[in-house]
């Protein structure tokens, strides 16, 4: 899928509350039209189209080599697309050289100028723009305060920690007040704790400035936390463009379902179709009943996808679990592996057919005397509402 699909399955999804703060303009600020880029015989970006609205925090998510960084570099002007157009505020920016684009980029390794101080790094772009000295001083002070680097102005980049360098790079790319800020893996070089707090700061900053951010990342958690919309890229194409919630709960393809989060997949054929329910005969899980998806399933060969946290689990033979015993979709098997992850525990259940189903159970109490252990026979069950039907 190369553009945002209006017919995406949005059951149970409340988009409005989550992203009410995003300013919605009618015309997109940035329009990418059928852009292609080849390196030799390798097609890095393949007829990709995308609209980005003003004030949006957009994330390009994808595995390495999917073309997301190339797309970002095309937007910055470091690569020229072989085909297609890029419109910024309605005008084509293809002939505009990088130094004349109202777009700034924050580089993955920050690319701070080692011979210049923090102050000079931030002022660099302002001097080139021919700003008056006093105005530059004011703007630099404002930027330094914005990224909380007061007192560091005279330091050289080598005297800064990783987190401080990241802030200088951010301040430097924001100083010129670009219409679009491009961020190439902005948090990849930071450790986990710092990354989490910096994510919050970036979101806060973007909201405060009302600027359009496009961030490239391979970290889906990062993309989901920060972005209001995510474009998932694979092999130079956009697989899906959606809100984080849609991406997870209503993936457009089997590839997206597998790439974003963890998923159990059952391949099978649609056998019956009545009362808004489909019955899929699967090789590994028997007949699975699913709620009919909004988009029409045209092929009979499908995959049923179910997220591990939506697979519930009951011990067989214990006190009868009302919900479990009456569930429509029931799979019996033996627990083969228990991974305790702190907040949740992931159980691997080997079904009698040989297939493995993962079930993630939230650890809601400190002492779980009822926990399953390896070797126990269990029933895994799930609701038809939680299943997704994806065409193969």
């Amino acid at each position: 899928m190369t553009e945002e699909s209006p017919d995406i399955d949005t059951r149970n999804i409340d988009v409005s509350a989550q992203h009410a703060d995003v300013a919605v303009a009618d015309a997109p600020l940035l329009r990418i039209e059928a852009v292609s880029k080849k390196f030799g015989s390798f097609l890095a970006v393949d007829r990709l189209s995308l609209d980005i609205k003003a004030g949006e925090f957009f994330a390009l998510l994808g595995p390495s080599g999917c073309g997301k960084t190339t797309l970002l570099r095309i937007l910055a002007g470091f690569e020229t697309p072989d085909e297609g157009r890029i419109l910024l505020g309605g005008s084509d920016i293809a002939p505009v050289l990088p130094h004349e684009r109202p777009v700034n980029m924050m580089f993955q390794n920050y690319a701070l100028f080692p011979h210049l101080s923090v102050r000079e790094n931030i002022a660099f772009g302002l001097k080139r723009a021919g700003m008056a000295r006093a105005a530059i001083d004011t703007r630099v002070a404002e930027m330094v305060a914005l990224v909380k680097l007061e007192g560091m102005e005279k330091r050289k980049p080598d005297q800064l920690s990783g987190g401080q360098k990241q802030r200088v790079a951010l301040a430097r790319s924001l100083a010129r007040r670009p219409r679009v800020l491009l961020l190439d893996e902005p948090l990849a070089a930071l450790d986990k704790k710092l990354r989490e707090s910096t994510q919050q700061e970036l979101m806060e900053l973007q909201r405060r400035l009302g600027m359009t951010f496009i961030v490239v990342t391979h970290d889906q958690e990062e993309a989901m936390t920060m972005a209001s919309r995510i474009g998932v890229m694979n092999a130079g194409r956009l697989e899906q463009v959606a809100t984080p919630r849609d991406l997870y709960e209503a993936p457009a393809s089997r590839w997206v379902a597998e790439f974003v989060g963890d998923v159990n997949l059952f391949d099978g054929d649609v056998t019956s179709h009545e009362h808004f329910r489909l019955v899929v005969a699967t090789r590994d899980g028997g007949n699975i009943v699913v709620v009919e998806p909004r988009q029409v399933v045209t092929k009979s060969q499908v995959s049923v996808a179910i997220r591990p946290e939506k697979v519930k689990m009951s011990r067989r033979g214990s006190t009868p679990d009302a919900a479990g015993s009456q569930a429509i979709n029931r799979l019996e098997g033996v627990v083969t592996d228990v991974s305790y992850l702190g907040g949740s525990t992931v159980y691997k259940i080997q079904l009698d057919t040989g297939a493995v189903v993962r079930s993630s159970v939230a650890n809601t109490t400190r002492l779980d005397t009822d926990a399953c252990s390896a070797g126990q026979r269990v029933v895994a069950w799930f609701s038809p509402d939680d299943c997704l039907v994806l065409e193969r």
Partner: protein
Amino acid sequence: MVRQVNRMSPFNVTSLVLGLAFLYLPIVILVIYSFNASRLVTVWGGWSLRWYFEFFNDRAMLDAAWMSLRVAAVSATIATLLGTLAAVGLARGERFRGRALFSGMLYAPLVMPEVISGLSLLLLFVALNAERGFWTVTIAHTTLTMCFVTVVVQSRLASLDRSLEEAAMDLGCNPVQAFIRVTLPLIVPAIAAGWMLAFTLSLDDVVIASFTTGPGSATLPIRIYSEVRLGVKPEINAICTMVIALIAVVIVIASLASKLSSTQGKSAAPL
């Protein structure tokens, strides 16, 4: 910074001493004999600065020394200019056709026997009917030393992050401004090191200079060489000692400069 105490084994100490003695004993003897009071080169006659004074009164020797310094300074400057441009072209230019051939050709003088370079230059100057003198030696030395500058500058450029230039362009520099404001300040120490390397190479060259020099424009090494053929005068020892001192100073500065270049800003105090 904590200095690491590293005890050397007797074997290491011995091999180090032997190696250094092999390299420097002849030079040490030369330096000591330059302070010899005796007229005979091999007989020690007590300490004296006599031969140094002799040199400063030897008009022909002084002219040759002045010639050498001028040739070295001018050829090093031209070689640095051309060599830096070649390095930038090779490291930053698009992958043009024949790039590998071009860089290979650039490095040829590094391995070419000097006799061949000297002879070919001589043939060229004769064919052009150029009068041999200061400029022919200078041009010859430029071709010899340019590739050394290119090697030094190119290795520095290769280690420089390309995204620095992209960041400069992103922040409003055109490619030329990006080079002047970001790349150049970061490679200046390497350029300086290249200049000093070229200077010392020119200063001690005798083969190429002997092919390309003309009457009345002998460089110092050629002058020394022709004097020695008539018998070694103690004055030569004094001149050689001064040349060694000059080259040592330049080499030390050059290595300090390239060290500064590779650790730009990294020696700063930890937080």
